[in-house]
């Protein structure tokens, strides 16, 4: 009799817990990731960024064998705030840096919005190059039309040679003053097999994006990039 009672109580507690977890999952804001971008792709790192139409908790799970656990408990990587504080922020612009990857390896990644898996795709890391370039950071400011700094916008940069050859994409987020910097020494060819070498005629194109619909594209040439002319996000 007593055993039955304990079983019944345990059952109800379990039901309540499940209900609570479900409720949490249900009320968690979620949104379909758009503008998903793989950038800064080298032999050992990559950046996955995307935007959402509402503020969500974004996280990523990666796998080199396409196996993902059925429910995400601990994300491999999440929006940066979580990394250091074990708290997760709600953002409309997401950018997650994946490090310690293996060279020349195919990775599947899955984007989670809160508890929900919202997107899945893959990328391939490059080889480790035999040479390394010295740093070459270019930098600038993103501002609103009213000259206020734009915080947390994705700045993605691509180098374009005179012949029209494009580099793989590099990206960063604008800081609290609207500043951004990207090191061109990290630029590679789109197949990631070699460094993308610059000359005076190389053009630099950036796309700045803060949430859905807020996007601007600008370009400049080498020599006018330290700093870049201010980019106004309309």
């Amino acid at each position: 009799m007593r055993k039955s009672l304990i079983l019944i109580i345990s059952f109800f507690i379990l039901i309540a817990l499940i209900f609570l977890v479900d409720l949490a999952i249900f009320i968690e804001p979620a949104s379909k990731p758009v503008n998903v971008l793989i950038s800064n792709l080298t032999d050992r790192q990559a950046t996955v960024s995307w935007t959402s139409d509402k503020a969500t908790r974004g996280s990523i799970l990666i796998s080199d064998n396409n196996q993902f656990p059925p429910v995400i408990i601990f994300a491999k990587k999440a929006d940066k705030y979580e990394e250091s504080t074990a708290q997760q922020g709600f953002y409309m612009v997401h950018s997650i840096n994946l490090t310690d990857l293996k060279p020349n390896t195919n990775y599947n990644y899955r984007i989670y919005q809160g508890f929900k898996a919202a997107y899945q795709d893959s990328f391939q890391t490059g080889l480790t190059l035999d040479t390394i370039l010295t740093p070459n950071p270019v930098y600038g400011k993103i501002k609103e039309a009213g000259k206020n700094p734009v915080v947390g916008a994705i700045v993605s940069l691509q180098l374009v040679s005179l012949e029209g050859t494009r580099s793989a994409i590099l990206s960063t987020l604008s800081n609290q003053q609207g500043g951004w910097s990207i090191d061109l020494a990290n630029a590679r060819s789109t197949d990631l097999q070699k460094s993308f070498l610059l000359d005076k005629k190389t053009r630099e194109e950036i796309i700045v994006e803060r949430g859905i619909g807020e996007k601007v594209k600008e370009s400049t040439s080498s020599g006018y990039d330290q700093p870049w002319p201010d980019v106004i996000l309309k």
Partner: protein
Amino acid sequence: MEILNRKKIISIGVLVILLIGLIVGVILVQKQQIFKSRASLQIYNAFNVGSGEAGKYVNCTGNVCKTNTLNVTISVADLQALETTSEVISQTPEQTAREDYFQTVNDEPIVDDQSQNSALSAYFKSAQDVAESEDQEYARERGLPDAQTLGTTQNLISTLEKGLDVPDEMWQDWGSTLGNLSQGAVDLVASQVQEAQEKGEQAKAQEELAKAEVVAAQQQEKYTQALDRWSGMPALERAETLREYYNLPPSTDPEQVLSFYDKAMTLGGVEFRSGPQASTVGPYGVHLNTDLSSFIITDTKGSVSEYLSTATPDLVGIVQGAIETGQNLYELYQSMPPEKAVEVYFSLSPEARDKVNEAMLNGTKEIAGAAVQMVPFLGTNILSERVNGLNSNMAQIAEKLKDPNLTEEEREALKQEYFSSLNEVQDVKKDLVLNAAFDLVGGVPGSALAQKAAGKGSLAAKTLFVDTKTALQAAKQAGKEGLEGVWARGQRVATEERGNWDVFGLLRKGKGEVGKPVTPGNSDVSAVEKVKDVLSRIDEDQFRTSNGTLDLRAYKQDLSLRLSEVFDPEGVIPEVTDRLAYWVSDTRNSRELLLEQAELADRAYTFFRTKGIHGVTPETPQDIKGAIDALKYDSELFVREGRFRSKNPDEAKVEILQALVKQEVNMRGHFRIALEDVTETLDTLKDFSVKHGENPGSFSHIPQVIENRSRFHVVDEDVLFKVYNPKKESPGLSGLTIPEDGNILVGTWTGAQDLLHECIHGCDLAADTSRMARRALVEVMGSRSEADRVMEGFVTRVEEFGATLRGKASSSHSFGPEVNSAEQTIIQMAENLGVSLDKARAKAIALTVQGRFDEIVKIAGVEKVKSILKENPTNIPGRFPTNEAIVTPLERNLAISEALEDLARAKEVRPQDNSGLVPFWNLLIGEVFAQGENSDNFLPNSSSLEHLVKLKLAKRRLETTGYLDNHYIGDLMKINIFAPETTEIADGLSMITGKAGNVESEIEAGKYKVEIGEMADLDIKIPAFVEIKSGVTLVPIAIREGSGKVEKTAGLSRGIGGGETAKVKVAAFYDENGNGRWDSGEKALPWAGIQVTLSKVTQEKTIYLKEGWNLISLPVLPSQVMTAKDLLGQIAKQGGSATAVSTLENGSWKSYVVKDHQDYSSDNFPIEPGKAYFVNASKRSIFSFTGQEFASPVKLFLKQGWNAVGFPILSRQFKARDLGAKEEFTIEENKSYLLKIEKEIDFNP
């Protein structure tokens, strides 16, 4: 069985109860401990408990803490716990991380592997924390609320903004949406909600205020109506009105009410009131308690506190509401009756009072403007603007005149206008020149120097305003010609320091007029003999009272008489002998002092007569030089005139005597007492004004005015009578004189109360900003004399108030007509404003003290005031003499007025006697500059300048200490101020160049940081560091024209000679090409007084940065946590410039970029030992930092792929291949490398 069971049950029950009790007890104890902990925390935070270091508020040794500021000793039970807790609470995570590390490395010096590992681990952790704390802040900034939260928040905001009540459910809904948000998002929405809430509350409060105003107006109306009917009102109705008005109970006996009222009126009260309504009428009168049991009479002197307690809650509520809703408190307060405002003020909370105070001060500033905030040289600026305006007008007229279509009449009218403007320009320009001249000479009107400066017109500005550029030009010239340098370093241009030019005036005058031939010793008997004779004939005992003390008054009179008999038989200078006797009788060891000074007077007299002031050379005996220097500052002699005031040699000697003795006693004490008295009076006056409803700002700024803006020129009465106006045509000169320029001359005998009086003139009317008020008054009154009369009347009235408060009789000035005018004007004000006489008077006084006379005249009515003045013709004709009549002894006035000002600024400053000479000199030297050759003030050689500097030194001494004794002067004279000078400081040397522009000294070998102060309009380049070994190491100081920058150049100074000992030589040169190096052909600058400090660098490591990319690594463990941002900041601080630091992470570069103080990166990262970093420097520089040497190599964890590594220390020799790289090169200690590693490895180098 049953019984047993029952017993068991009872036992179990008791046991359960006990257990519960125990648990509850434990919980309670636990709770109490928590409370204790919190309480301790509060106390701890309040006292900032330190660990015994100097400078902390509380110093603790063990568990006992003491404080210098409070006379308490605190015993702390758990000091360590408190300190730990406080740090957590008071510091940001970043600060905590830095502090933790700093303490760790200080507590645990690196001596072995273990301590190194511990320090490294602390460094890595703290550096990571520091970098991440920024990331967290950034993440918060970036975070946004989700859509659901935004919707809920918007609903809440719109409800709040309407001022509607928000249902609990709505709050709960909103609160539940915040749970998952980032802190940044929560802050954002919370601030929006708070803003909406404030808006809603403001709307509510405004509504309330409007309601309250209507009620107040109704009450006032009722009261006014009742008063209108008062005289014809039947007794019973009167009683009923009073009862109603004062909220007395309906059952109150009407006769009793009337009886109290009559009694109150008989006792002199203006009004009768009680309870809350008491605050609606003036400050004096009767307060009746609501139960009619007693009443309080408030007169001008007492019971104010009783009165203050009756503030009505309604007004308090209104003010409180106004504070909360951010209304204009100043306007609100201005609209209240003064006494009401005071009551309300004292009924407010301390925080609310602060708000009111702030609003009142700001409001006063806005209205009074210039009267509150000093604007230097305002007069000159205004005049300049006027000239510009007129010139522009004239140019326009000239253009119009070119029009051929003008009629003759139009042409004539334009010409008239043109010439009228031209005349005004000339007049204003004259004023400008006078202003400039007065400013130059310290504001002393009519002095020869001022006259001369004025006469020279624009030349005054050209020749007298000198700057460091002029000095540099002169020094360059001297350097080229190999001449002896005579120039001193300066922080400010000379014209900023008034009073420099009096000395030039003396020297120039001295050159021309002093030294007229006289026969030495033409007085048969020396001053010494005469003094001896006088003293021998005085029997002190004759002046002793019955209790044995000396009757100083009688003694002084007798001594004065005897001195007069000997020195001044014709009684020409009785005041001088009188004062001499006074000083002697008032000074300890007076006889000896007098004799000593008499001897000096003899010699000084002879010297002065034969050689004059210009005859003072380095060979002149020190005491003579000292005496003459002293005379220039505090003397009855008109040194600049080249003669003693008294032509009679005997009289001259007594003048010298008097001056010398006076040095010992000085005027400082005299004026200190006077000023303190004035300050006290003003404070009392301020309190009075506050208590009586006036704006605290109206009086409170006066002491400040005295201290900072006083332009008094205190002169002796004999000067006023005999010199200032030799024809004695103006009887008014004995007290105050306001010459044309608006400066104030006051007799030295002026007492404290009068000083207050003069201050009101001097500070509010005559000095800089207050000239505005005076001009405004003149404009309104139509003439200056009329304006002065109004001013005088009100000022006298204010003074009388002050005198009454201090319980002293008011001054006996004979300004009867002026006072009458003021009184009548006040009556007129009361009428026009519809207020009581007291209120009008209070208003008039407040406006007077604020200098807002124009407002007074406006209130009373311009025409009315004019007619009042006409009815009260002044009885002080010729009170304002013309400029031509003004002649004052410049040097004396300056000395006294400056001493007075300085006294007020630094009341208790008393540098230690002679030990303070050198620092004084260093301060002073900044005030003396080289002159252009064409200037009248050109100093021919270094002796002249040295002399000048010493004069300034003595003067500074006089100003700051109030003393200027002969010992000091003697010591001063011995100093060779243009000799190079080296002083040991805590960690190095402080070196000052001599007149050759250099200074050399032995110094301990080692590395030193070089520091130098900025110099206006010059650019200086010095090496940032100097490495001193044996031989002489040169520290070149490159100087050239510029904008006042000091730039540190990269590279160390090199030794230039051999030898056993280490020496350093600091030398200035003119940096012709501006490259900071002493190139061939560039000349030395013989510039004395350049001060350079060399501070030894301890445990300092240096990283040399060349222009472009540098691969660096940390050679030691830094004593401070260093991030990329810190590194760039430190490089800039140390005179370098670098824009980026890059680190290699996961085979990719991550850069932190700062350019022109702008951060361009979002990821800061720690700078760690064992890693290498690229630094992009935009110029060559040296970066130094302190840290500990490693005891053993730093272990490295190298990942597969590219790694940037540094090796501060190696335990063995190895090659790159040993690390897993393909290359064969040898790894060297303290170098940095980029290595491609095939397989990750833990490596111990």
